[in-house]
């Protein structure tokens, strides 16, 4: 069982959460001007680091709020709690 610290509710079991992928992926400022390849890059391509990774989680069985956090993908340790 992995405990995840929700910034609002505190430590809860992993099954109360859903994963939201990489954090801080900004919407393109001018999507009309992008090529198909650039659009595909924005939609489908994400970092896959071995180590600390900024990602989004939602506490779906609790307060239902989204938050950003840093997780080490090697150890699954949550390095930092963040909003």
């Amino acid at each position, binding site marked *: *069982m992995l405990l995840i610290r929700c910034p*609002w*509710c*505190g430590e*809860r*079991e992993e*099954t*109360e959460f859903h994963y939201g992928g990489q954090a801080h992926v900004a919407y393109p400022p001018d999507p009309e001007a992008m090529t198909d390849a650039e659009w595909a890059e924005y939609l489908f391509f994400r970092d896959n680091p071995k180590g600390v990774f900024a990602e989004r989680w939602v506490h779906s*069985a*609790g*307060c*239902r*709020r989204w938050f950003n956090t840093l997780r080490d993908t090697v150890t699954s340790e949550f390095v930092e709690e963040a909003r």
Partner: protein
Amino acid sequence: MTVESLRRSPLADHPLVSGSGVRLVEIPFLTAVNVQGAPGFPTPPASGVAAWGERSVLWLGPEEWLVVGPDGDTFDLPGGVDVSANRTTIELSGPNARDVLEKGCTLDLHPRAFGAGRCAQTTLARSQVLLWQTSNAPVYRLMVRGSFAHYLADWLTDAAQEYL
């Protein structure tokens, strides 16, 4: 308006067990209003419950509360949505009530971490509940969706067998 004669609670015909260690009772038709934004009532701290007259204000999330009143209570709040029909309430009490909950809930319910005047949205036996401790006796209220009420009542009945 609800036609009183047609109104049925989710556990109206469902047996709930009671014994020396654990008592299970349904409290049907509590009025519940979900409020977001800036409220005009006393607000509890995170994961807490505040009293507002005979009503209780339960913390659901940042700037989100559930105001729970008795059956038939009516109040109009800005930013409030009446969600009374969403959930029914099962009251779990008795000296072994915490032992029953701990079979299916991952929260730390020991008095050092949880007590009267605390509430939490969490999962109990894989179903989502709003867990609310009203007394250190202990007395817990489990607010559960109507469609999950039979399942949760059956699970609680099974979990309570050894304490009856």
